[in-house]
């Protein structure tokens, strides 16, 4: 726990009113010195994988060894993902906001001695703006952060997610206390309706309307009613929800409790992917702490309202992100979806009225309750209000997490915030919406990113994955990739999805080998239509989207595979040949040593050559060559 963690003095930890919460918050704030330096180390999954745990440990040791006066002794804080993952491990010195990137444990001593003790800057650790080559000192001036509007992510990177005191100090649980003491459940639902918030999990169903239908269902069927967090973030390339659960778990929890209050639910579930162990850990800690402080469990804040929740770990099935499959999974069964003649708000978990919302949706709720639905509705564009968090990945310079108001042009996200494609070429396409979404080509780079505009372009918002592709990425290969993914993840219950997706993938397999005809493209289109119309759940009905959008925008590339047996992007193995450029090759022999089939030969310090009859096109020579002498033709 953070240094500032402290118990409510002498009595039990339990907070019993809004006044209690405010008093406690003041106690925490009073103990803090705003001028005391704080060294913030990112402990998001990305930075941890790059060794940030070792960095924070080294900073701790360097501090202890430094003999700094106790009065100015800086605090060390570890936070959730700060978003700028491609430049991690990240270290920020607050209150100034000095931003250090790619920090190694060996830099710790210098950071302490120079920045903390002498007030100087360690210049080599600063971020260099690639457009003008200038170093940038403060995090708020870095273009990646500057162009963002951090609303949902406002706490992440600032608070220690394992310390409820830090959350409370930054305004956590104020919305809950406000609702429990000054609002009726009906007023909470009304605020959400006014906000225009739409579900962040993919389909974009208006959250207020969902809650209202649940209330109507409860009127007919009575209680119990359940509230559920969908944290089964299965879209490959998406990590928004993971970041929120890891970095600000109390925001999700507070949103869930508010929803429970609005609907009169006493029990809730958080369904979280098992692949996210840190998110599960932080949510578990958050729930234990919230219970200890009287913010979760019996008689919350002495209001008479009781609610508790439990975490269900997913077991590795993409289809469980679908509402009815998720419910059957919580019930202990294989996650097969069911037809939705009756919607899950009426008949969900255990056959009872249930409200299931995505992690990011729940994290928006406290903000709306605190600041009002009108405030929220003023952000973004009509029909797509508020902000959206995107995970910007693939062939883009600034890989990371980005939050922008709905409706900003795609190019703002990819080029201004993301810094464009490495090497400076324009991007080829951006895949939004994961396996259910589609590709948006460069020509449509001014498309506003909101629910309706993306759907109009043939794609969808999805949960917010944005995968940037450049001209070395093949649309046939990407289509195959998503189909293979969905084919494996299909539960097999309905025929269109079970057999249709396999057939589509087989056609694309043929294309990637230069087989097939234009007639196959027609078959692909009619098969897509049939699957869209007849699959049982959204996994199947949206599965053709990546193929349909790429066929629409990149038909020539498909035709090149089919009619000319060429893969213009140089990806499809059967249609390419590796070659060594004798003018560039230095004869370093690195590739020959790595080649698994020993098909590269040549004298040392003389250009080498590939025996294409033996080559298995594994690409290792190209990855190994430091001189870019290996080409694909």
């Amino acid at each position: 726990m953070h240094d500032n963690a402290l118990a409510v003095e002498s009595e039990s930890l339990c907070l019993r009113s809004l006044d209690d919460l405010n008093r406690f918050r003041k106690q925490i704030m009073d103990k803090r010195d705003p001028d005391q330096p704080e060294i913030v180390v990112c402990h998001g999954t990305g930075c941890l994988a790059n060794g940030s745990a070792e960095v924070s440990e080294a900073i701790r040791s360097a501090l202890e060894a430094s003999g700094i006066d106790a009065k100015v002794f800086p605090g060390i804080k570890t936070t959730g993902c700060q978003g700028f993952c491609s430049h991690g491990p990240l270290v920020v010195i607050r209150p100034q906001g000095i931003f250090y990137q790619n920090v190694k444990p060996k830099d710790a001593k210098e950071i302490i001695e120079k920045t903390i003790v002498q007030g100087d800057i360690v210049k080599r650790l600063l971020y260099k703006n690639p457009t003008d080559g200038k170093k940038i000192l403060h995090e708020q001036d870095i273009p990646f952060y500057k162009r963002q509007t951090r609303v949902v992510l406002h706490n992440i990177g600032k608070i220690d997610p394992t310390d409820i005191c830090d959350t409370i100090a930054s305004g956590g649980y104020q919305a809950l206390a406000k609702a429990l003491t000054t609002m009726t459940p009906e007023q909470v639902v009304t605020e959400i309706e006014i906000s225009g918030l739409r579900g962040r999990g993919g389909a974009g169903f208006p959250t207020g309307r969902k809650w209202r239908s649940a209330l109507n269902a409860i009127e007919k069927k009575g209680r119990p009613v359940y509230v559920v967090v969908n944290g089964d973030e299965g879209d490959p390339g998406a990590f928004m929800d993971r970041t929120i659960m890891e970095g600000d778990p109390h925001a999700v929890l507070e949103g869930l409790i508010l929803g429970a209050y609005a609907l009169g639910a006493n029990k809730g579930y958080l369904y979280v992917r098992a692949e996210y162990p840190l998110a599960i850990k932080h949510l578990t800690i958050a729930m234990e702490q919230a219970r200890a402080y009287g913010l979760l469990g019996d008689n919350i804040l002495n209001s008479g309202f009781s609610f508790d929740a439990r975490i269900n770990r997913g077991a590795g099935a993409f289809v469980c992100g679908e509402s009815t499959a998720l419910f059957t999974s919580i019930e202990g069964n294989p996650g097969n979806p069911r037809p939705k003649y009756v919607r899950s708000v009426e008949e969900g978990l255990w056959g009872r009225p249930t409200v299931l919302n995505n992690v990011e949706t729940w994290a928006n709720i406290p903000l709306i309750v605190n600041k009002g639905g009108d405030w929220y509705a003023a952000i973004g564009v009509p029909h797509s209000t508020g902000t959206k968090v995107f995970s910007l990945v693939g062939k883009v310079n600034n890989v990371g997490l980005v939050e922008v108001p709905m409706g900003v042009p795609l190019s703002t996200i990819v080029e201004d915030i993301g810094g464009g494609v490495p090497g400076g070429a324009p991007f080829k396409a951006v895949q939004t919406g994961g396996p259910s979404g589609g590709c948006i080509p460069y020509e449509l780079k001014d498309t506003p990113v909101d629910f309706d505009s993306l759907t109009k372009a043939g794609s969808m918002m999805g949960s917010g994955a944005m995968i940037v592709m450049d001209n070395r990425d093949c649309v046939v290969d990407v289509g195959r990739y998503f189909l293979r993914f969905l084919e494996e993840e299909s539960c097999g219950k309905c025929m269109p999805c079970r057999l249709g997706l396999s057939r589509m993938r087989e056609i694309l397999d043929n294309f990637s080998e230069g087989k097939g005809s234009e007639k196959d493209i027609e078959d692909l289109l009619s098969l897509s239509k049939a699957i869209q119309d007849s699959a049982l759940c959204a996994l199947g009905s949206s599965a053709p989207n990546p193929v349909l959008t790429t066929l629409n925008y990149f038909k020539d590339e498909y035709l090149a595979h089919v009619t000319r047996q060429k893969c213009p992007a140089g990806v499809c193995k059967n249609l390419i040949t590796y070659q060594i450029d004798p003018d560039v090759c230095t004869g370093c022999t690195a590739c020959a040593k790595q080649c698994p089939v020993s098909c590269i030969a040549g004298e040392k310090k003389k250009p080498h050559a590939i025996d294409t009859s033996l080559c298995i096109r594994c690409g290792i020579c190209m990855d190994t060559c430091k001189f870019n002498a290996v080409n694909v033709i």
Partner: protein
Amino acid sequence: MTDNALYIDEMMDQYPAKPEYLIVILQDIQNKYGYISSDAMRLACDHVHVPMTQAYAVATFYQSFRLDPLGEHEIKVCLGTACHLKGGQRLVEDLERKLKVAPGETTEDMRFTLNTVNCVGACALAPVVSVDNKYHPNATAQKMEKVLKTLTDPSLAEMEGTGNA
């Protein structure tokens, strides 16, 4: 009663004897032993009162469950979209050649299990390979060869860039 059965019985005591706890019990068994043996599955079924067929349906539906023992080291290649674009599939093929097993299989000497995973959400580090739950960012065939060598002979130099998953 064997030690394993004792452990499982004790672990299951924290969960009510209801079918809804089947998945979490199987997860706990797998976390402890790396796979679910038929004996362990039987114990779970007895506890939550479901037939073996039901547990088998669950264990084969969800990707994370294994019904055969895991090797000493588990290598998981991420095949999320970002990793795919940056050569994740080529890494799988390279490891298949090196270990002479297909994804999901374990080497004969029980040293290595090769698996693929849909997305670990560390896309900035693509392609990512997780070895015994340690992430190896920006993985290449060369780097993985070093990792395999170190695992075979731990006295070899420490590899760069690892962290806890």
